[in-house]
């Protein structure tokens, strides 16, 4: 018997007490209306909770969005910026940084040397202060937001879902998904929180309010 058959027959043997009439899909639905944890001010809550995770959050009107990205870059002094394909040009600031496009794909070494990356997001979650990437246009391959030290996300206010279940419903399971809540962090040494272990040390979130 190969592994597959032996595991499956062991499972079936173990479950012989389960009546045949019981259907596997007969699971009580786990989604559905539940308590609203977000309250009325979804955007405000998102900004507050993301900031609690030590992300730098600013709320700006559309007209100021590009400048806000520029201020985030100036703050860290980043000189090279990765811009994924499909990122809206009108959100890109003028400035002294060199722009790296991922077409053709950048090498890992190039990305490791890059100082910042700017992306849009797929959704965000107010209650948890999370941004979610599905690596579609404007977000790029997963590695783009992993190696550079600063990640700047531009979030449209209407992309912010109140809570985790709503955000998940908006996502496409067949795309690679990354849920990001604050910068990389560890608490492995005496439970002292340290930011920036492997992922970006700095997470900047620019919330565009009237997009």
């Amino acid at each position, binding site marked *: 018997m190969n592994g597959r058959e032996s595991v499956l027959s062991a499972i079936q043997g173990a479950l012989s007490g389960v009546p045949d009439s019981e259907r596997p899909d007969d699971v009580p639905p786990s989604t559905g209306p539940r308590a609203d944890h977000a309250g009325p001010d979804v955007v405000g809550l998102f900004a507050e909770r993301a900031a609690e995770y030590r992300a730098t959050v600013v709320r700006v009107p559309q007209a100021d969005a590009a400048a806000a990205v520029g201020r985030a870059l100036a703050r860290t002094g980043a000189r090279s910026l990765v811009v994924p394909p499909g990122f809206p040009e009108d959100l890109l600031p003028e400035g002294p940084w060199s722009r790296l496009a991922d077409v053709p794909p950048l090498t*890992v070494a190039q990305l490791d040397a890059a100082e910042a990356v700017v992306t849009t997001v797929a959704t965000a979650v107010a*209650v948890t202060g*999370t941004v979610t990437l599905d690596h579609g246009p404007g977000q790029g391959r997963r*590695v783009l937001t992993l190696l550079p030290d600063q990640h700047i996300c531009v979030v449209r206010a209407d992309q912010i879902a109140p809570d985790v279940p709503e955000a998940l419903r908006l996502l496409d399971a*067949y795309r690679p*998904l*990354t849920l990001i809540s604050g910068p990389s962090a560890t608490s492995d040494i005496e439970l002292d929180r340290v930011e920036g272990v*492997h992922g970006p040390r700095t997470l900047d979130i620019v919330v565009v309010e009237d997009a």
Partner: protein
Amino acid sequence: MSGADNVVWLGTPAFPEAARTALADTRLRANLRRATGTIRDKRLAVAAELDDWEELRDTAAAVKRRTLRHLDHHLLRLEETVTAAGGTVHWAADAAEANAIVTRLVKATGESEVVKVKSMATQEIGLNEALAEAGIRAYETDLAELIVQLAEDRPSHILVPAIHRGRSEIREIFRREMGEWGRPAPEDLTDEPRDLAEAARLHLREKFLRAKVAVSGANFAAADTGTVVVVESEGNGRMCLTLPETLITVMGIEKVLPSFADLDVFLQLLPRSSTGERMNPYTSLWTGVTEGDGPQNFHLVLLDNGRTATLADEVGRQALSCIRCSACLNVCPVYERTGGHAYGSVYPGPIGAVLTPQLVGVKNAASLPFASTLCGACYDACPVKINIPEVLVHLRAEAVEAKRRDRLLPTTEALVMKAAGAVLGSPRRLAAVQRLAALGARLVARDGRIGALPGPVARWSGTRDTPAPARESLRAWWRRTRTPTSEDARTTAEGKVRR
């Protein structure tokens, strides 16, 4: 138990002996108390934020139990969807089989090193050791696992495996060992957590950038879409899941969920229960392979290794609902005092006490179901409502039964208890025995405590410190001080007369 199995660390003493050593380590206890206390408080605060927390727990418990009742169906579905998304599914009945599969897959890539995301399943099967035997070096990339690996130590907590190490110890480990494994620690390394984390970052980054193969575990997998989920904070997981060409995920068969939509409950419960955060910094989800993004070869190894035996036990089965949040460890008074190593198992704490004996057979971890006070704190904390005390009691009965079957003779305990019954049933006999015991015990006691005794009660007495009985029993004392003396009797009698 087969030699390849790592669920129980061979050669470690049974819980009572190991606990005795751990209890003597005051620094370990102080570290643990501080750490578990901190996480505990954070967890309570963020759980209280969700006013439907109890409903979420109920839902999670229901989903998990229902999934287990039809596990074959959901696994076949998962196999189908992962395959359709470009992944390859493998089934492993035991540790040896799983290790052989992973070793073969790594060999096929022509590589001799792999990077690893922290994973209980691969620890359980002793994958690193098996790979080493095949000439493949496995690098742990989670900071705590790195500390444990460099120190040739064992993890002591599900979530914070190096919880037993202090910062200066970690600095020494880094300075001494990093050079052996790759980029050495900087000369001027301090014991500041920030500096230590930076040293780990530099040490590991070169490994991430050159790695061609990664091995991970999985927190969840959704059967309807084939999506696999890894939850982490440092970004080492993302590195492993993204940079290499080949990704091999070893997942216990109990980790499957019926649907992607079920993730919402678990993604609310897991981070809040484990680190006390609303959400962990990074959650990665992937479905098969995505062209042009991440590993182009994805293998999912479905691991049994004792899980189907656990599934067969209708009381014990619920332990398979565990989402490894470690909340039960952090509230457990026994864990807080002994630390994880005392359990001698990959799975420490209350969940270890019920899961380990089931995975390896109660006979092989007979002391673990007794490593608990049955206070119930673990049940209250568990986000999937595993009734750990119920399973503990159930397994205790099994352990005793197994012992009895083995010997086909009454155990010493049984004989002692029978004798005790006879003695306790008769005041006269009790008094006689008490006088004898007080005398005898005071002869063997040191500092007022009785340690290990020779003879048939050696095992019983060796695992507990019993206070030596008082010189005199309460009954004897009562009789001596309260029984009316002839003098008292006279007074009383006279009083009666006067009235």
